[in-house]
């Protein structure tokens, strides 16, 4: 049995956060692709309360929630550090990771999948949130320090995935005219070799989201 197993979905940014952390530490692992429409008994046993990916199984013990897993990896394995050493810098990194997951993601989801007024309202809110990120990233290469870290990884969805989702939906929210610092950070992030070499194929993500948008449009089309 592999010492480190990752239950994930290869197209998912949440899975990729964990994979990036494992790769940066040089940890060998077995990736077990999950079918979320037909969840495996291993997934359900390992994460009974949320039933979600990713789940890291290390020496038989499951750890759930992607950023909790990333922190676990940082503390368990040798190699370049993912969180900074200073407690204040760590707090800042955790703050931006939480801001991203709890504030930005749900609102972005509504801009893509919400209907009518809900979607329009979400677009305004999303712009305000990206503006906050844009202000924070002024004169900064990454969220904390001069190398990719915890907070950058938490925001991974708005780097590679965002552009593809916007192409699939036909709605563009993020431009370098409106958010120059945020877009500069996005480019810095995407060009890092640790990231560039470990991204899922663009076509597969595009096809996945095009299908989801089509299904959502079909569901709301007049009969």
């Amino acid at each position, binding site marked *: 049995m592999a010492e480190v197993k990752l239950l994930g979905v290869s197209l998912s940014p949440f899975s990729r956060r964990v994979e990036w952390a494992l790769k940066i530490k040089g940890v060998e692992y077995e990736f077990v692709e999950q079918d979320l429409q037909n969840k495996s008994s291993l997934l359900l046993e390992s994460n009974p*309360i949320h039933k979600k990916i990713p789940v890291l199984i290390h020496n038989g013990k499951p750890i759930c929630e992607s950023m909790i897993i990333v922190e676990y990896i940082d503390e368990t394995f040798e190699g370049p550090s993912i969180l900074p050493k200073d*407690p204040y810098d*760590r*707090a800042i990194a*955790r703050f931006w990771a939480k801001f991203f997951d709890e504030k930005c993601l749900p609102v972005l989801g509504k801009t893509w999948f919400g209907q009518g007024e809900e979607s329009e309202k979400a677009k305004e809110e999303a712009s305000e949130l990206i503006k906050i990120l844009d202000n924070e990233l002024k004169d900064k290469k990454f969220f904390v320090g001069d190398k990719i870290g915890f907070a950058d990884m938490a925001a991974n969805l708005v780097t590679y995935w965002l552009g593809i989702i916007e192409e699939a939906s036909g709605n563009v929210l993020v431009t370098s005219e409106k958010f120059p610092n945020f877009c500069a950070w996005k480019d810095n992030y995407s060009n890092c070799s640790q990231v560039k070499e470990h991204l899922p194929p663009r076509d597969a993500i595009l096809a996945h989201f095009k299908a989801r948008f089509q299904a959502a449009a079909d569901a709301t089309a007049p009969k």
Partner: protein
Amino acid sequence: MAEVKVYGIFAGPFNRRVELALKLKGVEYEYIEEDRSNKSAELVKYNPIYKQVPVLVHNGKPICESLIILEYIDETWQAIAPLLPKDPYQRAMAHFLARLIDEKFVMAKYKVCYGKGEEKEKGRGETCEVLKYLDNELQDKIFFGGDNIGFVDIVASYVALWFGAIQEAIGVELLTKQKFPKLSKWIDEFLSCRIIMENLPPRETLVPLYKAQFEAATQKASS
């Protein structure tokens, strides 16, 4: 200027956590009571994104979000009363439980209080699911932290005190000794600790606040 400042509200579960952690560690601090309907300029300056309590200010630098503040306190004042375990797996579990309380449990409780019909029932189910999980996690330990109060105990003060007050205020009893024997025992033990009694608001002060809140929301909904 005090080296450590805490911005909070009297009945606030999240800022009380921060104060508990500081008291356990013997750290002196200045407490500033905020008025939610008239927030101070300092609070807005220190927490411009969320504009809410708690905020910890240490040597002029603000830290926001209660779980992040607790970790900061634990990492900064390491020598006394460690709140999180040393083992990375135990730490990951502690983070998982804290999020379970702050996310799933708080949302479920909201459905129980304000949901209608099916949503209310779903809330009851989800509340009990989390309570059962916590009950199982305790096993034979006195506290979630083992022999001493730790990170999860501090976070779970929400369940011990505030949820108890909410149940009384809305006339619901989901957390019973019968269904959750270990958790109930922990609540009795936890709330009778001197440091807890001295630093949490008395339950009698919380019940009328929640009754008033609940009545106001119910009236608004039916008008």
